[in-house]
């Protein structure tokens, strides 16, 4: 009965946790509900190289951080130049909102450089733990910087528009922007803790 389910009898040996992909698909793709097939889906998951996880994490860390910074800069910048038509005095003070958004991209660069120092080649890594850790760190840093950048951009746009109406409002709305920029730092903190746990050796 086992041979009927799996098709052939001899292809379950694993080399370093990698499984012959043909055995997963030609036996279990239409018998996914059988308990013997659950393990093969875990093997599919486990046979993704840890370096794939790690490098994807590094790319996400820098890519999503820069996306958040750019998004925030265009939201703030477009409002700034629009409001400065009738109130040109606001343009030099409100550039600080643009700098807050740029700082988010700098966080991404710093974390990506820290992460790449952990990326060393081992011909047979002991486990995928470091790969998973770097992937999660990349997600944390990238996505939290993305949301922080958009938040600071929206608040900076509101700051420029209200500053154009009433100069005393600039500092008060800047306080809200400072609260917003703290979220990128949360991501950096957790990202550094995660990267510290990862080691391919």
């Amino acid at each position, binding site marked *: 009965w086992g041979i009927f389910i799996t098709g052939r009898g001899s292809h379950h040996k694993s080399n370093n946790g990698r499984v012959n992909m043909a055995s997963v698909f030609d036996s279990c793709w239409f018998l996914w509900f059988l308990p013997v097939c659950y393990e093969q889906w875990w093997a599919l998951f486990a046979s993704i190289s840890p370096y794939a996880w790690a490098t994807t994490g590094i790319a996400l860390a820098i890519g999503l951080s820069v996306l958040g910074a750019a998004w925030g800069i265009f939201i703030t910048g477009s409002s700034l130049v629009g409001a400065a038509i009738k109130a040109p005095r606001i343009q030099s003070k409100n550039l600080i909102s643009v700098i807050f958004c740029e700082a988010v991209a700098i966080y991404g660069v710093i974390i990506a450089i820290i992460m790449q120092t952990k990326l060393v080649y081992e011909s047979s890594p002991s486990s995928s733990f470091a790969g998973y*850790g770097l992937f999660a760190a990349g997600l944390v840093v990238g996505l939290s910087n993305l949301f922080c950048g958009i938040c600071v951009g929206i608040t900076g746009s509101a700051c420029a528009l209200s500053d154009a109406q009433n100069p005393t409002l600039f500092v008060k709305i800047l306080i809200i922007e400072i609260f917003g920029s703290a979220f990128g730092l949360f991501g950096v903190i*957790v990202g550094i803790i995660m990267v510290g746990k990862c080691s391919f050796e």
Partner: protein
Amino acid sequence: MAGVCPPAAPFFGFMGAASSLVFSVLGAAYGTAKAGVGVASMGVMRPELVMRSILPCIMAGILGIYGLIVSVILVGQVTEDSYPYYSGFAHLASGLSIGLAALAAGICIGIVGDAGVRATAQQPKLFVGMTLILIFAEALALYGLIVAIILSGKTASSC
């Protein structure tokens, strides 16, 4: 299979730590931005009320702190050995519970804060009512934090 730890379990633990911070920051960022735009709009007419009206933004920021706390706890719990699927999925659930609860609370605080500060500019007596509604919204994230801390303690001593 006694004694052999599944290599895929730490993936779910790390995903719990990541989701706790990512979703909390999304909720907190939404709340801060939405309420901040309301404050800037009402400040044009009533600049003397702006400092009191920053309250919704502060309450949204606290949600990010909740996510940070749970994320740091979970990163400390994920290990390479003696980490079965029990721990991995418990930590995933812990991260999702605080993350999604803080996301919901952040959206709520943002929308209520935006409407509340604009209304407070026209009727200053409404500040107390807005604060009460914001406290109920913040309590939602606290419920998620309680469950997340309980689940984050679920570890195993061996596989």
